[in-house]
């Protein structure tokens, strides 16, 4: 990516409180993002919410890089009404590690984290009700992972609940 370093009040605030956990602060196409280590994600969100006026959680999503050691990229996008600025926070998550849930800071993280769990299998520690949201509850498999085929289905579930032999 042709990134440019991002300087300003917010990167300084993040580095001041979180120090070496802030791995990088960059700009791509004029959109700022910060790469953090996973344990610093919730403290960063709390910091931005409490001190920098970032009162609105726009989105939580994940990206799957199966060939990488830390398989998932967890992305939080937050926005500040007072500053009119949007900031992306990214962290790399290896399989099996559980990020801390952001629900205590932003109530809107509830369903967004459930969707990340449903689609990728990333569990959030401390989430009030972590269960599948879009797929049926007893589905096995995480559809948005790269090793899940585009026409693949949980055939056991389909057979038990819908009574049809094969999907296609």
């Amino acid at each position, binding site marked *: 990516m042709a990134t440019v370093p991002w300087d300003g009040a917010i990167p300084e605030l993040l580095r001041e409180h979180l120090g070496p956990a802030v791995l990088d602060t960059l700009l791509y196409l004029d*959109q700022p993002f910060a790469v953090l280590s996973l344990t610093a994600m919730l403290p960063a969100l709390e910091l931005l919410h409490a001190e920098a006026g970032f009162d609105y959680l726009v*989105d939580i*999503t994940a990206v799957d890089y199966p060939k990488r050691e830390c398989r998932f990229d967890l992305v939080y*996008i937050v926005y500040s*009404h007072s500053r009119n600025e949007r900031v992306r926070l990214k962290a790399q998550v290896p399989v099996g590690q559980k990020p801390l849930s952001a629900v205590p800071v*932003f*109530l809107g993280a509830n369903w967004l984290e459930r969707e990340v769990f449903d689609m990728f299998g990333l569990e959030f520690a401390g989430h009030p009700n972590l269960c*599948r949201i*879009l797929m049926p509850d007893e589905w096995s498999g995480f559809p948005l992972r790269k090793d899940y085929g585009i026409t693949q289905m949980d055939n056991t579930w389909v057979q038990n609940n819908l009574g049809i032999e094969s999907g296609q």
Partner: protein
Amino acid sequence: MTSIDANELVLNMGPQHPSTHGVLRIVLKLDGERVKSTECIIGYLHRGVEKIGENRTYVQFAPYVDRMDYLAAVSNGLGYCLAVEKLMNSVAPPRAQAVRVILTELNRISSHLLWLGTHALDIGAITPLFYTLREREEVLKIFENYCGARLTTHAFRIGGLQYELYDGFEQQVNTFCDQFPAKVDEYEELLSGNRIWRERLRGVGVLDAATCKRYGVTGPMLRAAGVPWDLRKAQPYSGYEQYEFDVPTRTSGDTLDRYFVRLDEMRQSVRIVRQAIANIPTGPIMAKIAKVIKPPVGEAYVSIEAPKGELGYFIVSDGTIHPYRLRVRPPSFVNLQALDYMAKGALVADVVAIIGTIDIVLGEVDR
């Protein structure tokens, strides 16, 4: 969840229900007629649009985007085209931007008209549905004349527009703009002074500004709570900074205020369309963009003010012709989380009003 309270009734507003605006299932825990808690179960319309996005080229994915919020297909298309154009670092020419604004605002009017008709129908007022659909027919005729389809329009292409304006476009849009404000006044005459309407909606589903921000609620719900935030003013796109319009807000954040905010938004949309159509710039309709869309490696998040709230597209590109990850941030999904907060302590009939006022489209909630 393991104890049973003898005073509590668990009622299922199932996926097939005329008032849930699609396949939405809500499990209500009632104490008599009062709601103690609600639980939304969604996913009945999940089609895996984000997974499909990883297997189609950028141009091929554009028709799928219309089918998420199917009532505001033109808005969805605008957001997607802006996101890919951002990744390709190109901008649509001014003529394309003006036509995009006109069609998007007409789409906002048609989405709000359908919302008004179905919301009134849920409350019990059957007549407004016929009148709003009659007006909506005029807008859909304009879309049909322009791009060939009424609902799933696929009107915009990455880099600009595919079709030049047809003969009679300006005339048809001007005729619509001339007769439309009188119709909005007619809806107000039917509903706004009506005591049944006011009693049903005043004080129902109150969501104040701080709670809105904590839940991430955007769109007319946030503006009815008093926050004058509109992405068309805060972070303008596609030439919106050239047009003069107000952002309607109200104070108390209940269902009646959201009704007034959406009616005012329709009037402001007519204002924008009139300004845009008065001077559409001449010139090309498509930017100089590569035939095969292969954005450089990177990611971008672009969001627009859709009729329902903030619609965002987060696209990660790995340099090939397929997107690596295409995430859609649906406004209805995030707004629907606030249903539990709003419905606590309300009556069952109020739950129907609250679902209507959030203005959800299940195609967008489930994707």
